């Protein structure tokens, strides 16, 4: 790192691999579409990647928006739970020699950590201002990064998949798509559906929806608010941990991995409307698609007007910014997001 900059939370030595850039790493048995074969197939591949990113973002954003909608808490440590989920999964998978078992234990463990965190720290923040939330959870973020470094070391980990999932399937003539990525989409869609069922069809879900639109009322109804909050936070934590472990085999398990995606998740809930799960779903898919497809095609689009190298570097810069431009656009037109939950 440069100079004597001992600043708090300096970014990790190498930036976390950005979504979309990990796609091209070579793994055995992965089918691939040639980069210069600008066919429909390439677009479909990127489209699917975008859906996948969107679904993972949704898992993060759903927790975030619930926690903000119901407890009015801005939680910067949400990315830490995502990271912890990945680390737990990598560790448990190693111990049990099974990806699935590792995943299950990881979810449970993250849930436990989340609930403990809520009881110990979060509930004391509810009464404070949003600025205090930002500060306090920022402190937690630093703490967790350091704790992970202490326990697992600075190098990061890997989470490997069972052999079958490493294969690629020919989903369309000429297009080979990794099985695991399809699994991600399928599983996360299932979880989204379950979440929908939970929120729309169960009593807990009703309390959650009520809490999102009128916090005080729910308390006045005699519901055990404290327990509700703990459960909601735990649910958010589990979702985050789950997202973390799901992406781990493809992308990364390293310190600070939560930060970049956390910001994306915040962008999602801003676009979707704070407190709204439906909004989070739509916005997450939008963000996932814009980011992935944009990143893939923008350099080529620019190549029409610019030289290859200029198009490449400008394309890279612009595609990183695209999400934020979309967010800015949405906020100009609808400052409360696309599907704002309620007056509160």
């Amino acid at each position, binding site marked *: *790192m*440069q*100079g*004597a*900059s*001992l*600043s*708090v*939370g*300096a*970014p990790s030595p190498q*930036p976390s691999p950005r979504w979309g850039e990990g796609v091209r790493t070579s793994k055995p048995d992965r089918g691939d579409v040639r980069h210069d074969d600008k066919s429909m197939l390439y677009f479909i591949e990127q489209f699917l990647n975008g859906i996948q990113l969107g679904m993972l973002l949704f898992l993060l954003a759903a927790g975030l928006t619930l926690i*903000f909608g119901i407890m009015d808490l*801005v939680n910067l440590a949400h990315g830490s739970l995502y990271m912890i989920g990945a680390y737990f999964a990598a560790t448990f998978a190693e111990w049990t020699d099974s990806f699935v078992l590792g995943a299950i234990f990881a979810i449970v463990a993250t849930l436990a950590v989340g609930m403990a965190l809520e009881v110990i*720290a979060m509930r*004391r*923040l509810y009464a*404070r201002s*949003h*600025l*205090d*939330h*930002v*500060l*306090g*959870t*920022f*402190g*937690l*973020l*630093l*703490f*967790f*990064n*350091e*704790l992970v*470094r*202490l326990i697992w070391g600075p190098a990061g980990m890997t989470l490997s998949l069972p052999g079958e999932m490493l294969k690629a399937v020919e989903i369309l003539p000429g297009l080979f798509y990794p099985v695991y990525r399809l699994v991600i989409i399928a599983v996360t869609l299932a979880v989204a559906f379950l979440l929908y069922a939970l929120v729309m069809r169960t009593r807990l879900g009703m309390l959650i929806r009520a809490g999102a639109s009128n916090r005080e009322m729910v308390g006045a109804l005699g519901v055990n608010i404290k327990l509700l909050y703990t459960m909601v936070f735990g649910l958010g934590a589990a979702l985050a941990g789950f997202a973390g472990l799901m992406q781990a085999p493809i992308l990364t398990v390293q310190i600070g991995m939560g*930060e970049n995606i956390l*910001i994306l998740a*915040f*962008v999602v809930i*801003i676009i979707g409307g*704070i407190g709204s799960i439906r909004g989070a779903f739509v916005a997450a898919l939008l963000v996932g698609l814009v980011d992935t497809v944009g990143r893939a095609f923008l350099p080529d689009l620019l190549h029409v007007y610019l030289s290859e190298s200029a198009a490449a*570097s*400008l394309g*890279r*810069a*612009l595609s*990183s*910014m695209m999400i*934020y*431009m979309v*967010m*800015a656009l949405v*906020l*100009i037109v609808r*400052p*409360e*997001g696309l599907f704002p939950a309620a007056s509160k």
Partner: protein
Amino acid sequence: MKGLLETSRGSRPSPRLAVNAGLLVILALAPLYAALTGDPFAMTLFTRVLILALAALSLNLIMGFGGMVSFGHAAYLGIGGYAVGILAKEGIGSGFVQWPVAIAAAALYALVVGALSLRTRGVYFIMITLAFAQMTYYVAIGLDRYGGDDGLTIYQRSRFGSLLDLDNKILFYYLCFALLLAGIYLVWRLVNSRFGLVIQGARSNERRMRAIGFATYRYKLVCFVIAGAMCGLAGALLANHTNFISPAMMHWTRSGDLMIMAVLGGMQAMFGPLLGAMTLLLLEESLSRVTDYANLVLGPLLLFVAIYVNGGIDGLIGGVRHG
């Protein structure tokens, strides 16, 4: 007028005055301390304190007094720094060009960001300012010519002809000190002026402000631009100080640092940002000498402050303030 060093109404000088005055004395004598102890790092550290205090001061103008919680303030540090770095690389080494450009560029970006962001409130505002800072971060990474991710070394500090030789560490230190003091004085006058009262009123009760006839948006926007400009200057100083620019200058954790400094020091106090910068940097420094895992202490400490402390260090010293 609310006192700059803030004396109490009684005959006994308030602890606040003592602390602030003491702080100034310590800072004024820091180079002497460094020379006596022969510790070169002390100068570096204290200069850094001054520069980041200026940045935190600019943030506190909009955040503490204006109630605009900007989570993307490091963007202006970065823009100011990159203005200096880019101009230096392109052969324009004169500070008389670099620094005004740094300030103007930061002010311009603040104008754009503010114009869009100030239409939102609450957490939306916090996040959209964060997002705009992220944009500058990614743009900086994409600037291959200027180092991209690795950053760019500045071989020659800003030149001011025969007036100032910024390579002289002590001179540079006192320059930063002078600029910080000027900044504090400026903010003090600003906050108590008509403009400042409008800003404070908008923080206190924006609905009321509109009801009595103030178009609050434009005042907040102007304030936002002023803060951006001031931070751009801090960025120019920082680039000179480290002889280096990199995207890390505008990373969001840097914005977080600035917020911590402002809150830690006390958001209603003129000397708050300086107190906060000093405390945070010294704390980090001493912790890192003791342990490899400084954030295991720092993190929970921040959480503690967030939960229990009102009015920051300034609040602890002088009791809770009014108005």
